């Protein structure tokens, strides 16, 4: 089951929309997040697992190693509507989506 995180619409045009997610037991929580189109996004990813993760997405142009217990913020530029995949490059079964309606 996926939980939908609706970003606050009040954010200004150049102010990034903050979205938080965690990695635990090789799962993104939530596994699907939503963000508005045309706005910069800041994804805060917390690794609650015992093993390092490499948060990566080819579509979002991000790649960042997150130590166990660590937290990383990745910046994503304004997006066109679509369904953008991200994953843990150290554990490919760990998959998630950023949905821009």
């Amino acid at each position, binding site marked *: 089951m996926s939980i939908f995180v609706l970003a606050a619409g009040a954010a200004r045009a150049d102010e990034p929309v903050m979205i938080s997610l965690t990695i635990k037991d090789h799962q993104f929580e939530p596994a699907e997040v939503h963000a508005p189109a045309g706005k910069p996004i800041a994804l805060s990813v917390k690794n609650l697992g015992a093993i*390092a993760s490499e948060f990566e997405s*080819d579509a979002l142009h991000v*790649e*960042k*190693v997150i*130590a166990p217990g660590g937290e*990383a913020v990745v*910046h994503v*530029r304004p997006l066109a509507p679509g369904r953008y995949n991200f994953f843990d490059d*150290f554990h490919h079964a760990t998959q998630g989506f950023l949905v821009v309606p």
Partner: protein
Amino acid sequence: MLPSLVIVFREVFEAGLIIGIVMAVTSGVAGRGRWVAGGVAAGVFGACVVALFTRGLSQLFGGSGQELFNACILGFAVLMLGCHNVWMARHGRELAAEMRAAGEAVAAGSKSLAALAAVVTIAVLREGSEVVLFLYGVAAAEGGASIGMLIGGAIGLILGSLVCLLTYMGLVAIPTRYLFGITSTLIALLAAGMAAQAIAFLQQADIFTAFDQTVWDTSWILSDESWLGRALHTLIGYVDQPTAMQLIVYAATLAAITLLMKLFAVPAAQRPHAA
């Protein structure tokens, strides 16, 4: 065992491609074994240090420390590769033609060797820090290094080294008169790919945001995540969804290296045949 094998192999494979090229480029240059081995050793040491400080590094510069660090070391590698090609444009032929007695050529050879050893260090550091961090986590989760993890890691290391060896053997099998042109091209493409990757890290850090739209998507033909995609990413900087800025930086790096090689090359009259 399998996760360790896959991760170790993947990272050693990526570093191994670069080491294989460097070994082929420097074949015949005196003392290259020591330089390359030193580069690998420094890279392994650096990898452990970086892995140890990953959390601290990430928190620097408003959370963008990791991106800035990667962009800086990649930028440095690009500079080293570019310098190597420029020095070699002048002296490579003398070296290849066994005219190593020429003092200038020897000096250029050892400068280049130092530059390429630095590139090896950076490649090993980048890939190695991921291996160290990953294996450390696995060991911590399992309450100590397990036999399975160590065997998996060892097999990954051996297979990855094999890729390095095959790259080297494949390149040195090329006849000497073509080798110089081919390795110069490979080094230039390697540099352009690293420059594009460096700019991607700056975009990710939100430092450099111009021209950040995705230009095309070839992930349906060749994904970055496939083995071929990974190999091409390391070798020529292939990305399935490049941004406009990555393409600009890629083209500009290639153009700059090509231009500098032409500018610094030995005048055409002194060469047996043009590059």
